[in-house]
């Protein structure tokens, strides 16, 4: 056997190509991975894992439901109780469009509780709870008032999912009677109530949880770590948004066909609100009137404010100004549907990398419209980096950063390329994410995962509350967080209604009084 040079070339010509491609691939992958580790080392971010909670042991916790409207139903599902209608509807949707909600509901770990009581002033809803959640051993009992239920000795804890003007009276009643309470947001409807509820919570052994379930979102916990590690530098501006453009988003919910003066206890609905004749529109769409709800400032701004308060811990703003109006749904409502809010925190800082004293203070803006659904993400803008915060989390270095100047100079960081991306749905955090992974991340793989299972954050929030009831422990959204949230919402409502800057006195812990003005009267007024 004799091989000529030509033979060798023809036979082994592929080898140098193979070697070159292999070398190029290895080198590129290693350089990228080295750059990434260098960045990650500098950032030192620890992606959050779900916290382990002690088991909710012993006798099942006896829960009373106050209010079984849209949110009440959602909360019950998070507790593990779905109505027969919902299950049927989801089966149908699963068949038609592969909706996985039912499967997720069934996969949800069972909590050690039973629903023993219900309080709803609309007969249809109360009867629905009894029919759906009663078992041969445990018949759900209907109470005509919350006082009756709380004092019956038949419930250990209550879930309050009523219109806003009932939140505080019910929560206070529960706490004063040693009954644990989970109250929906906003925690209160007036400034005065906010102090009373805080007092009640301080004096009670019972646990109060405010329903900001997003505090369970893993990306927010990671964001908290990012702020602590001073990855963003001094954050001077935070922008948050609400963008909705549909009837449901504008609080024009369905009016039930069986609604009538015979099926609804109208006087009880009104409570402290001005006495007016029976009005189905007000009953089902109460969020549209200051008498029962608080519009964008209480209903939606509180989400964004608390989301950021959970990450930044900035507390109540020093100043709030607000403007807006009823510009997209002039349908008889008196709460605004377009709102711009500026909150100022002149003394707040997330840490500076520049000369001492140069940076201090932050403006938090909230811009909401119920007339456009374009998705504008939450952005935190720091001297060294910007962070987009949602269920996913992405950080971009800033071209003018002091902290990353060297790495930007060396081309290891580029202002338009994210240096950190956290997606709790993916198995690993991606440091320098490519356009592709960025795209997929934005596309909506947006759930909180525990051991690879998609989990509803409301479930986690309720579980934390139930665990505290049984085992003790601190709550991620207790009275302190609720107080911050409620005061901020009320200051916003006041700023909007008065057209004036509202100031918070941190020392005195009160809204700086304005002569001749009763804040709560203004908040409850219809204009």
């Amino acid at each position, binding site marked *: 056997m004799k091989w000529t040079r030509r033979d060798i070339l*023809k*036979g082994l010509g592929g080898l140098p190509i*193979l070697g070159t491609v292999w070398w190029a*691939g290895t080198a590129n992958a290693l350089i990228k991975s080295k750059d990434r580790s260098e960045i990650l080392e500098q950032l030192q971010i620890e992606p959050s894992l779900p916290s382990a909670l002690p088991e909710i042991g012993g006798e099942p916790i006896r829960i009373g439901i106050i209010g079984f409207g849209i949110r009440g139903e959602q909360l019950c599902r998070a507790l593990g109780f779905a109505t027969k209608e919902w299950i049927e509807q989801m089966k149908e949707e699963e068949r038609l469009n*592969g909706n996985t909600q039912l499967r997720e509901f069934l996969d949800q770990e069972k909590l050690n509780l039973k629903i023993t009581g219900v309080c709803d002033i609309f007969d249809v809803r109360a009867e629905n709870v009894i029919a759906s959640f009663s078992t041969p051993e445990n018949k759900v009992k209907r109470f005509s008032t919350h006082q009756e239920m709380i004092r019956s000795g038949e419930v250990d804890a209550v879930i309050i999912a009523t219109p806003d003007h009932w939140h505080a009276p019910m929560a206070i009643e529960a706490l004063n009677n040693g009954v644990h309470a989970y109250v929906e947001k906003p925690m209160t409807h007036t400034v005065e109530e906010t102090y009373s509820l805080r007092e009640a919570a301080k004096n009670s052994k019972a646990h109060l949880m405010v329903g900001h379930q997003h505090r369970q979102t893993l990306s927010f916990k990671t964001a908290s770590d990012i702020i602590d590690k001073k990855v963003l530098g001094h954050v001077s501006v935070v922008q948050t948004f609400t963008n909705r453009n549909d009837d449901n988003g504008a609080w024009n919910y369905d009016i039930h066909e069986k609604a009538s003066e015979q099926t609804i206890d109208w006087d009880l609905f009104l409570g402290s609100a001005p006495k007016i004749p029976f009005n189905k529109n007000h009953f089902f769409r109460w969020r549209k009137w200051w008498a029962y709800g608080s519009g964008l400032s209480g209903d939606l701004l509180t989400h964004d404010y608390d989301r950021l308060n959970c990450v930044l811990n900035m507390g109540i703003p020093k100043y709030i100004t607000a403007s807006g109006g009823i510009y997209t749904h002039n349908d008889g409502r008196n709460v605004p549907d377009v709102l711009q809010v500026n909150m100022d925190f002149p003394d707040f800082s997330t840490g500076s990398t520049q000369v001492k004293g140069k940076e201090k203070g932050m403006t938090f803006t909230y811009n909401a419209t119920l007339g456009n659904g374009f998705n504008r993400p939450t952005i935190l803008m720091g001297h060294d980096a910007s962070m987009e915060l949602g269920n996913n989390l992405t950080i971009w270095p800033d071209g003018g950063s002091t902290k990353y100047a060297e790495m930007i100079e060396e081309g290891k960081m580029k202002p338009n390329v994210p240096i950190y991306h956290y997606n709790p*749905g993916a198995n690993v955090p991606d440091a320098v994410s490519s356009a592709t992974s960025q795209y*997929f991340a934005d*596309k909506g793989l947006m759930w909180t995962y525990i051991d690879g299972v998609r989990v509803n954050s409301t479930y986690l929030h309720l579980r934390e509350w139930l665990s505290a009831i049984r085992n003790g422990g601190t709550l991620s959204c207790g009275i302190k967080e609720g107080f911050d949230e409620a005061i901020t919402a009320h200051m916003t409502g006041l700023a909007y209604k008065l057209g004036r800057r509202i100031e918070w006195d941190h020392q005195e812990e009160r809204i700086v009084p304005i002569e001749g003005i009763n804040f709560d009267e203004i908040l409850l007024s219809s204009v």
Partner: protein
Amino acid sequence: MTDILKRESLLKSVVLLRILIGWHFLYEGVIKLFNPDWTSFGYLATAQGPFKSVFIALTNEATMGPVDTLNTLVLIFVGVTLILGIFEKWGAIAGMGLLALYYFAHPPFPWLEQQNVEGSYWFVNKNLIEIAALWILVQIPTGSYFGLNFLLKKESETIKTPQS
């Protein structure tokens, strides 16, 4: 004579095609092999079209790891066989299978929303064209014209005819 020339030039162009496709597969495979963070999770989890549920089923924790490893190994296998010109038929067939999976995970069907594409496609995309190109490689093996097979063939011929 012209026929042979034609054949020769055909063989050369098929060799070129083979090397380019091999290059493409090998580089993709090596990049993934040396990037411990790489995963096809995003690609699979956002799958569309008739086999959506099959691809999504692959994203569960138990299967994700093996799926990623297998994908990397097959990419490298296809790359190596096509570049070296040995077992190239197997390489081409494996490559077609892999590409078919990519194609059906995000098929360019007009009724589906086109996710993450850099061009405009209507049923036909680059994956499909590369499948067709690999089919040519299956039909016209060139490993014994340029590649390790050339040496193997020569060796066996030498054994058969010891005089030459």
